[in-house]
């Protein structure tokens, strides 16, 4: 085990960074990342993480998540449609087989699909490199087969990793990851091979964290989203920022939560210097224009004494 993930150098946000200029002079690259997930009722066990809080079958927690696909997804999608927002789907790729109707609805709208593993109940913990490559290849192949899209982005299933994960996704041709939470701007990820960008996702704006960990009310969530946006929009006048709203249809898609989300989306999209982007588009812009400058400006980190 390492003391430092050794995935990025130190690049302080002190005004000295190379400037990011988004298309059309936008201040904020705004993207919405719905996690479209399938949780298994009776998955095999991984010694590093249990799948369910209760003994299997945990019908409460299983059905709680299934709600997102049956009911919540449609509400979330309609709210995004009203604001002209294309989603960047964080996809458990087995959804392509289980619920192709949802995949088609996203594809018909020009949404991006990136990988969130195969199932949200199959973790990367303890996989060998060969096994992990098999999981990544499954995602590449499944997304290609069902959507025609090249897989560019990665968010590890249930945020589970090995020491190899980001090296492998870069080696297999992906261009960005959402797994790192160290910045409000994209940044280079140090991998063995390839060029990989970290694109700001967010735990703080993530409805799982907001609703299930921080236990906030829906109306308060709308306030949080608006405040986050306001500051990033103001700061984006100096150098482009990124705001992501990661979503889970099983949470945001409840009737009593959707109104507050709609209101926050309308507020954000009512500003003119906002780039309504996808994860892939943000990554490409950064890789084409800023990756090298950011890599060059960053400070190498010395090893701390033991």
């Amino acid at each position: 085990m390492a003391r430092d993930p050794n995935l990025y150098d130190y690049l302080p946000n002190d005004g000295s960074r190379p400037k990011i200029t988004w298309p059309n002079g936008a201040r904020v690259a705004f993207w919405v990342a719905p996690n479209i997930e399938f949780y298994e009722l009776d998955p095999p066990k991984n010694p590093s993480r249990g799948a369910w809080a209760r003994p299997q079958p945990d019908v409460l927690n299983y059905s709680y998540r299934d709600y997102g696909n049956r009911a919540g997804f449609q509400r979330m999608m309609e709210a995004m449609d009203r604001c002209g927002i294309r989603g960047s789907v964080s996809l458990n790729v087995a959804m392509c087989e289980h619920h192709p109707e949802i995949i088609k609805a996203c594809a018909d709208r020009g949404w991006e699909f990136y990988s969130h593993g195969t199932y949200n109940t199959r973790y990367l913990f303890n996989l060998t490199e060969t096994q992990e490559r098999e999981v990544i290849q499954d995602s590449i192949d499944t997304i290609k087969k069902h959507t025609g899209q090249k897989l560019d982005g990665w968010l590890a299933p249930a945020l589970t990793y090995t020491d190899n994960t980001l090296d492998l996704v870069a080696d297999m041709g992906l261009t960005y990851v959402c797994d790192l939470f160290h910045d409000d701007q994209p940044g280079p990820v140090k991998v063995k091979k390839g060029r990989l960008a970290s694109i700001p996702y967010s735990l703080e704006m993530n409805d799982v964290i907001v609703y299930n960990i921080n236990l906030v009310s829906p109306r308060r969530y709308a306030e949080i989203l608006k405040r986050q946006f306001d500051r990033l929009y103001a700061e984006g006048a100096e150098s482009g920022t990124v705001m992501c709203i990661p979503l889970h249809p099983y949470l945001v898609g409840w009737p009593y939560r959707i109104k507050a989300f709609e209101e926050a989306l309308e507020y954000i999209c009512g500003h003119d210097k906002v780039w309504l982007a996808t994860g892939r588009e943000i990554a490409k812009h950064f890789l084409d224009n800023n990756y090298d400058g950011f890599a060059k400006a960053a400070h190498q980190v010395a090893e701390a004494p033991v």
Partner: protein
Amino acid sequence: MSDTTKTVGGSGLQPNAQVNTPAGGAGMPASYLQYDKRRYGMDHERYAWSQLHTRPRVVWPNEARVALWVIPALEWFPLDMKGKPFKPPGAMVTSYPDLRHYTLRDYGNRVGIFRIMQALEARGIKASVATNAAVAVRYPALIKACVDKGWEILANGLDMDHLHYEGLALEEERRLVTTSLDILRRVSGQTVRGWLSPAKSESFVTPDLVAAAGCDYLCDWVNDDMPYAFTTKSGTVTAMPHPCDIDDYQILINNHHTEDDFRDALIDQFDVLYREAAHGGGRVMAVSLHPWITGQPYRIAALEQALDHIMGRKGVWAATGAQIVDAWRAQPAAA
């Protein structure tokens, strides 16, 4: 994305269990990357996959837009509860004897439920009361009061310390089901058609046992806003959208929100369902209540205000679970 490491209170909607076993290096068995149930639809046989917005429109009696289903729970938490295989929401907390939590739960059965009863009666609403059989044995006068108000008795297992879970011997689980239903049917004089497992905890066979014992609707699964067909070994029953996420325990106890927040959540929930019903067909608004929570003097007005908002709209049908099930089964959506 998924749940992270922090454990959320006792609501049952908890983040996944975390186990800190260091990686061994040998990898996972090959079976870990095999997916026998990777196929169209669900990974089990209990119900068909479908999205709410694609189903035939439901038309409620008198073309109501929303069926309002209120479900108070009458629970008994034994003082010496074992919490096997886990402590249900509302369980004892301190070392034995935990008088404060025991008696506060019992407050609901002595005091809180009657505030709810008055609030519902004043607005012409008949509830389905989810009842532990132990409550019927211990407080038959309470069951009689519910029955006299025209409320439906909905089975909620034996008590809050007899959970249904995989690993319970089949005969023991069957005994829990039949004993609970026998008691509730005898004391209430009702057929008792609906079943809610204590803490919504099931084994793999709970729905089969419940259906075999004569129940025709089930309230454990929280995956829909509408009734849907649910398969058991004793025939098809109806799954009813009994909520967990929006109930008083989750919002007031687990999330520590105010009673005004609870009222607003109910109102926002209703408003969206009512809006959807205009084009999507009839909807169900389920209000799950715990009398020891909502029945407190300072909280009851929040429920009354939410109910006033709901009942003040045209096209709201206040119904029991059994009435909703029967009306739904007569619809093309049930086919």
